[in-house]
């Protein structure tokens, strides 16, 4: 098995190929929806800790934290997906992801409402992302839709979630 096939969430060709998406996913909740991140991109899950806000950056960047000596940015996935911000609860956690992109690796914390279990999703259980029309940038983040038992899991393309056009746009305007 080649490495890319080993890495769900890594969508090199840019099109969702259900066979490529098959694998283990860390699933978590945002509001009452269920999402999945390729397990190989997840480094660890940490408790919510004090976040130092960074002024004048995109709204979905909550700030930075000290992860054992490294400074890593935290993204509020709710804000990223255009959902309302909420107060953190006991269940709120940070999923630390390490994504290896074309220009080196990025480590980032993703703020989510609640982590669930790790699911092994077979190719046959994955459908292509839904067509939502061009206004929904959200669809871009989704590699495919997994259906496990009666649950629906949106499998995320972590590369796109991190290197979003929105962030680039803002950066472009500033440089």
């Amino acid at each position, binding site marked *: 098995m080649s490495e890319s096939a080993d890495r769900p969430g890594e969508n090199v060709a840019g099109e969702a190929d259900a066979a490529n998406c098959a694998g283990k996913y860390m699933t978590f909740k945002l509001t009452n929806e269920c999402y999945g991140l390729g397990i190989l991109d997840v480094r660890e899950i940490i408790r919510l800790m004090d976040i130092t806000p960074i002024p*004048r*950056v995109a709204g979905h960047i909550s700030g930075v934290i000290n992860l054992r*000596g490294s*400074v890593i940015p935290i993204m509020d996935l709710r804000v990223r997906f255009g959902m309302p911000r909420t107060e953190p609860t006991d269940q709120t956690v940070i999923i630390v992801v390490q994504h290896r992109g074309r220009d080196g690796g990025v480590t*980032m914390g993703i703020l989510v409402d609640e982590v669930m279990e790790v699911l092994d999703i077979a190719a046959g259980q994955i459908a292509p992302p839904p067509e939502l029309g061009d206004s929904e940038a959200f669809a871009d983040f989704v590699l495919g839709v997994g259906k496990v038992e009666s649950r629906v899991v949106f499998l995320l393309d972590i590369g796109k979630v991190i290197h979003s056009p929105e*962030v680039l746009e803002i*950066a472009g305007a*500033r440089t």
Partner: protein
Amino acid sequence: MEDPALRPLLEDIVARSLAATADDRAALEDIVTRLGDLIAKCGDEDDGARRVFVAARANLNDVLAGEALDASATLASVVRSLATVRDAGESPPASRDAEDPSPGGPLVLDEFIDEEIFGNFLSGATLVVEEIESDILAMEADDPAAARDLRGRVHTLKGDSGTLGLRDLEFVCHALEDYLDREVPPAARIRALLEARDWMSGALEAHARMRRPEEPGEAMAARLFAAPAESPSTAPVPASAEAPATPTAGPKAPVWDEDTLEVIGEFLQESEEGLARVDEILLSLEGSEADPESVNELFRVFHTMKGVASFLGLDEITRLAHSTETLLNLVRTHERTLDGALLELVFDATEATRRLRAAVRSSVETGHELESDAALPALLDRLERCRTGDPEGEAESPGSESATSLSIEPSPDPSPGGRPEPTHGNGPLSGEPRPVPSAAAPPKPGRDGVRIRQTVKVDVDRVDQLVNMIGELVIVESMLVNAAGVAEIGEPRIRDYLGQLKKATRDLQDVGMRMRMVPVRSVFQKMARMVRDLSHRTGKAVRLTTAGEWTEMDRSMVEQIEDPLVHMIRNAVDHGIESPDRRSAAGKPPVGEIRLSAYHESGNIVIEITDDGPGLNRNAILEKARANGLIGETEPVSDADVFDLIFAPGLSTAARVTEVSGRGVGMDVVKRNIKAMRGRVNVSSEPGHGTRFKIVLPLTLAIIDGMLVACGPERYVVPILSIVESIQVDASMHRTMGGKHDMVEVRGELLPLVRIDRLFGVEGAKSEITSGLVVIVEGVGRKVGLLIDDVITQQQVVIKNVGEGIESTPFVSGAAILSDGLVGLILNVEEICSVVSNRTAVGHGAVREGVAVPEALLAG
């Protein structure tokens, strides 16, 4: 050499020349005669081999006539070129290269060359090529030692590339050596040498990518000799330390400059490591079969030693290493086995090399002349006999030999009351008595002894790792010292320990930082070369003088500073210096001067570029800036403001700049690069007298002194270096401009005030100016007041990236982990100052460096 019948002849000649020493006239004459024979038998066919023979004969004749610059080196090069032909077998070098005429094709290395050797060679060779460049430039400046140094370096490079089978490089080095013997007009010579140098560095780059150079070595060599005025060598010997009248290998006066001493230090260190390794291998080999890898390693140690020693002019070590290497090569090619007498011989050679090393060290440290080692000829003789398979030589009892070596160690001291002259057991092969060292003239008054610096080579990654860990330690230390419970401990003993911990941490940090420091010299050298080229291309006479090139700065910064310097110096030559005519008309010397200097100033590194050109044209810049809308039509502006505009991107397209008066191509990039290094650049200029750029850089990229300030619930770090003072403002100092811009008047000076809470959208900060604190900071040559709530403490912080996932963080230059483990942001004072002063100087909506002026500032 088509005729196989010639091979034995060649073998014989190679063997003889290997045995010969540069002062052995009889042997050399014999070789010349034999070479003549060989050439005659080659017939008229002008193949590569014949050319090599002819060249070899010419070189040997030079040696005999006492005209060779360095007889031993010449002899060694002859031996090598002959051996190359021999090793090439049926196909001499020229046709061998023709077999694989694919310039830019893949580079195929011999099997015994592993990646590490090749990597070492490449990095070493790259340095050598840099040195070659500075030699060439020194030759242009009539430095008599430069030609000799150059030859030595080229020679070493030739040897190394030959060993590794890099034929192109070897060929060019060889051609260069020949070329150096020719009489060529100085200007043409320098040009040709520089071309060859450029080719070399291109070739090395190609090799690093495992390709052959685009232009084959032959083509480069041909270009070299295509230059006019060839008259075969009557080698004009530049004033050299060696008198031709005494072609004997008398003790050479050690005239070593600082650079060379450094190389010697490295050599002594490395050779010691190498010899220790040799011992280790030899011991492991005793009583067992020699495996090829060990033999290769032995070979490499001696080979490397030979290369460096020959470059340093340490003849004896060179000769010994050469003989040993040759012998080991026979083992490598399975003509001999490494056992018994041969093993013993290599042991002896190692011992003798140690002795020679020790002699070099003491010579350098005491300033006495370097003495010849009396036992050496005997050892060389044994090595040679062993190589030729002379039974007598092999039968030689090693016992008597080592006894001899012992009796003469350490090398005799020629000073009055010195030890009795040693006797040596075996006469040299030639039968001619070799000059004994103490028979030479009494030593010249010795220089003062110099301590040779010892060094250890360490992987850069490891150093970086160490520095990072020190950074962590600094944080933990400050966390500990400031921890709530600890700060309250009154127990003197514990306070004392904490104090010691603090001191040790600081010292460690200091040492760690210094480990990464390297001199800026390498960059300066590149600039010297560039100025020279530019000066030729533009037809302006420009001279670059440098100062403080040994000033050290962080390794990574030395790399980063290169680009900005290239831009600025190119600008200085292109636009800063006038043509010779105009200079003369202005009453200046025709040769323009650019001065590049580096020095330390209050904990910073300063690099200055000064030219003596016409200076910046204030009015033209101002006009342009007004035309571009960077500055309002009637606004009065200071000189500093105007000159600073040359860094603005709006003024940086070439066409405009040439109109304006020059300066500015890529200056915005320059500024950006320097800012990225947390440095700043100031420009000052005096009409008619020139322009000065002053680049101020922090000592290191990793750690800064910061002042931790509070603003509402947030904390920020302000770099101490940019802080002028902190003041409590009372109502009488507060002014507003246009009803909304806050200003603060400090001792008559009106400074713009930035409310950090508004800039950063922080809630809960003190809004009254009089209740907070104003920190006056200076950046881009301007002062600005920052309104904050309070100063918390002052501490060193390790700068971290804010995070790769965030593309841009305005007004924040980095993050730091504070003593409570949380992250604090480091303010980018330069950016704040430049935006604020832009607002006040230029007016609303002005955009500078692409940063939109935030509302908070405009509506301050």
